[in-house]
């Protein structure tokens, strides 16, 4: 729609420009038929076009002018000076409205009636009313777009890259020579402008992904016709912008994926009907931006990937040993389509099977710093998800160090970064291979030092583990000496001599102007011949447990504060946090913990823990949250053994065997029912607002209620018993708060405290007020 509107604006503008000469001529000689026709054609076209859009003003104006001019053309009316003036005024108004449209303003309101009335035939001698609107039209602004050759943009980009490097070099030298402050300030300004310039130039290279999607409808139509299928293509997200070069790099992979979807994915109409689907297969291509990545999803509702056939083929062609293949999970089976030499197409058709497989697609996507994932449900369809960085040339990367040399890793491949010495990580050598167990997930470990031919690290515990995610969800950890920095790097392809190393994806220049090698995570894995056996074993166990019955419950196993082993369903865990014991208080009859500006009910402990800091699980049912105290997270496990229910309903639902040990299953349902059931008013901590300032009721009350307090005013039932009182410091007078049995928080209107002894809080410091309210009660006997 926007495109059409822009076209309308551009066309109208062009016609106006072409018309300007004609208007002048017609004004001079109103009887000139050619000039009249030209203007008539203009208003006629504008009237027709504006009908497509919701542009009532332009439509009404052009319609009125058309009527008047039509009467002149038919000889029913004389083109007198009044009419000429009125028509020109209308044309000027249309021009103004078009400009407003172009500037993105809404020309919806405004009164054109005087102009339209002026077009009507006047009684002889009457003053032309259009003159009333006779302010000169604002000079038209020139069109704001120009065409540029791409080479020029490329030259600009490389010029800007040089500039950035020169700036970095200069920055380094300035630091070394400790230049005068004004020189540094001046340099900062230059540096800022260069950064802006680089952003702007980068943007000039962006193109709407539409240009990638535009050929798809035709292609799908032709493919469908060729294969005797019916395919309904829907495209979404065409306005996402992507580096022009990146769009070119994606063209072939996307074409290939679409071909595959139509050729192998979507069934023939009769087959679809037999399977209870619509005759026409649905193929959806959508793009969206997620952070500095673009996600492109290609989804069909066809037959899905025949995982069994794929696995059988992988085994028969020697890509995988049978015992390993048998342990693959569903996702890993589907990901086999990315292995070279595997295809489940029953026959080579004219469309696919020309020796270009999904392995090439994957290689192409990875070459531009992207990732490809596949998900498939038999009979229900296949979804391929491409994740690519916004630009081809600038890749967000992490720089790491090993044996004194720096390398870059594309951030898109990084899952997480952990220190080997961290509590959550166990690093072990098993038969010469290193295995890391990170929060219960086992991953193979590659040492970057060994990959680059350096000596093994002296101390394993000093290594940092970069957890890398490959296509198909395969994961491994790369151990490096140091993690330096996040940098946006301008990546260029490496020369063949460098690529033969089989470790690198490209070269780049670091901020210090030195060359930097960009590591290729999947090539590293391939070079180390990672079997992924260990990883697969785990996930395959989960998957197979899930395939025969209901999906196995995944649970987080932990040691509770009382030492028992407990677990909660993983899905209910929002996150794991740490809290200081002083954030925990017994308020309104139960333990609560303050996390940020929220108060959550605390479970898992009977009293305020003695340890200074404790770990908490934040559990959620989607709406409310509960905190659950624990001692230590042990593992993530699938519960495949039966759960023996507890004799009575309570916080523990039952017990199950996990890894040969009895583990109590926390009854999430019971917990949420106990805490969040129709909020028994009494369950909320009560807070009394004492004082008469309207601020209390109009401004403070909603804040407190939002934070989970029951707000009371003096005289209301329960007000006497409220254990928290908010008072106004101004009403109390200066000095410390009057003694009270309740917890008193005093707020003041002035931002600055009145004096030394003033313990009040500024009334707009929401965080401090909520923190003070939730703070543990001062021991009352102290008063």
């Amino acid at each position, binding site marked *: 729609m926007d495109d059409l509107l822009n076209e309308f604006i551009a066309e109208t503008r062009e016609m106006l420009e072409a018309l300007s000469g004609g208007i002048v001529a017609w004004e001079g000689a109103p009887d000139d038929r050619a000039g009249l026709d030209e203007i008539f054609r203009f208003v006629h076209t504008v009237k027709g076009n504006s009908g497509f859009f919701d542009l009532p003003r332009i439509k009404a104006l052009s319609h009125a002018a058309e009527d008047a001019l039509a009467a002149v053309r038919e000889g029913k009316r004389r083109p007198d000076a009044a009419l000429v003036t009125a028509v020109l005024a209308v044309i000027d108004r249309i021009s103004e409205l078009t400009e407003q449209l172009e500037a993105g303003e809404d020309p919806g309101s405004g009164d054109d009636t005087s102009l339209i009335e002026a077009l009507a035939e006047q009684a002889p001698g009457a003053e032309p009313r259009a003159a009333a609107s006779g302010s000169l039209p604002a000079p038209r602004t020139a069109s704001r777009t120009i065409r540029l050759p791409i080479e020029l943009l490329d030259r600009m980009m490389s010029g800007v890259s040089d500039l950035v490097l020169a700036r970095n070099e200069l920055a380094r030298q300035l630091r070394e020579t400790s230049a005068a402050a004004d020189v540094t300030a001046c340099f900062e300004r230059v540096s800022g402008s260069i950064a802006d310039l680089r952003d702007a130039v980068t943007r000039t290279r962006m193109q709407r992904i539409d240009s990638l999607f535009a050929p798809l409808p035709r292609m799908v139509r032709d493919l469908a016709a060729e294969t005797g299928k019916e395919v309904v293509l829907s495209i979404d997200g065409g306005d996402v912008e992507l580096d022009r070069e990146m769009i070119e790099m994606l063209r072939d992979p996307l074409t290939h994926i679409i071909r595959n979807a139509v050729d192998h994915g979507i069934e023939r109409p009769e087959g679809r009907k037999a399977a209870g689907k619509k005759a026409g297969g649905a193929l959806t291509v959508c793009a969206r931006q997620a952070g500095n990545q673009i996600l492109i999803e290609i989804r069909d509702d066809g037959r899905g990937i025949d995982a069994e056939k794929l696995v059988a083929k992988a085994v028969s062609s020697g890509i995988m040993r049978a015992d390993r293949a048998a342990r693959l999970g569903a996702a890993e089976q589907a990901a086999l389509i990315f292995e070279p030499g595997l295809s489940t197409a029953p026959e080579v058709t004219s469309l696919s099977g020309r020796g270009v497989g999904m392995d090439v697609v994957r290689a192409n996507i990875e070459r531009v710093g992207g990732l490809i994932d596949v998900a498939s449900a038999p009979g229900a369809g296949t979804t391929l998800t491409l994740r690519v960085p916004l630009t081809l040339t600038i890749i967000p990367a992490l720089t790491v160090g090993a044996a004194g040399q720096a390398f870059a890793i594309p951030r898109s491949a990084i899952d997480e970064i952990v220190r080997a010495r961290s509590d959550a990580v166990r690093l072990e050598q098993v038969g010469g291979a290193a295995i890391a167990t990170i929060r219960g997930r086992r991953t193979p470990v590659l040492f970057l030092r060994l990959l680059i031919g350096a000596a093994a690290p002296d101390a394993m515990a000093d290594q940092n583990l970069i957890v890398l995610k490959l296509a198909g969800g395969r994961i491994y950890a790369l151990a490096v000496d140091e993690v330096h920095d996040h940098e946006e790097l301008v990546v260029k392809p490496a020369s063949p001599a*460098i690529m033969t*190393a089989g470790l690198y994806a490209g070269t780049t220049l670091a901020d210090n102007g030195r060359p930097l090698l960009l590591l290729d995570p999947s090539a590293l894995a391939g070079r180390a011949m990672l079997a992924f056996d260990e990883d697969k074993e785990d996930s395959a166990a989960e998957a197979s447990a899930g395939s025969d019955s209901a999906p196995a419950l995944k649970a987080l196993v932990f040691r509770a504060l009382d030492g028992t082993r407990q677990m909660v369903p993983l899905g209910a865990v929002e996150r794991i946090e740490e809290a200081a014991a002083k954030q925990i208080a017994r308020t309104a009859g139960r333990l609560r913990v303050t996390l940020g500006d929220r108060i959550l009910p605390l479970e898992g402990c009977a009293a305020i823990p003695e340890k200074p800091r404790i770990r908490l699980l934040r559990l959620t049912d989607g709406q409310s949250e509960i905190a659950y105290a624990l001692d230590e997270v042990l593992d993530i496990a699938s519960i495949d053994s039966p759960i023996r229910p507890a004799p009575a309903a309570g916080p523990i639902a039952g017990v199950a065997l996990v890894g040969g040990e009895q583990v109590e299953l926390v009854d999430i349902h019971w917990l949420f029912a106990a805490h969040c059931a129709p909020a028994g008013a009494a369950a909320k901590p009560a807070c009394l607002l004492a004082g008469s300032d309207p601020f209390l009721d109009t401004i403070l009350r909603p804040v407190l209620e939002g934070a989970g307090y029951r707000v009371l005013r003096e005289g209301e039932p329960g007000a006497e018993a409220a254990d928290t009182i908010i008072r106004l410091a101004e009403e109390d007078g200066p000095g410390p708060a009057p003694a009270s049995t309740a917890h008193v928080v005093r707020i003041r209107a002035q931002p600055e405290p009145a004096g030394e002894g003033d313990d009040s809080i500024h009334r707009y410091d929401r965080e401090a007020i909520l923190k003070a309210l939730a703070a543990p009660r001062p021991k009352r006997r102290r008063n």
Partner: protein
Amino acid sequence: MAALLLIVRLAGERVAFPAADVEAVVEIDYVVPAPGAPAHVAGLAALRSRVLTVIDCPAALGLASGETPRRDAVVAVVDGHPYALLVEAVEDVIEAESEPVPLPMRTAPLWRRAAKGMVPAEGELLLLVDVAALIAGQVSEAA
């Protein structure tokens, strides 16, 4: 007009690169190693915003790479990739007296694949060296 030749000292000999193949002559002051790359690839160097692949020419010829810091390099672009070829010294640019001619006999194994022919210049016969062959490496036959 006859072709221009860039005269460099390489493996102890004065040899000629076709000047048309050469983009620039630079001094390389810092080389970042590229672990895993072939032995004749010394690493990477930066030239303005470009990353050059640095070729250790003696190593490419199968000689042990010299110990003295070689800083003179010849920049050449092959298949769109810029390379810096480290040589012992860059001496001069001179005009060839005639077209290069094939070598009349087998050269020492060292030069067998890197040599394109010989070319007379300034009253001397010079070995004409193939830049691309040096970049590809392993140019000397195991003798």
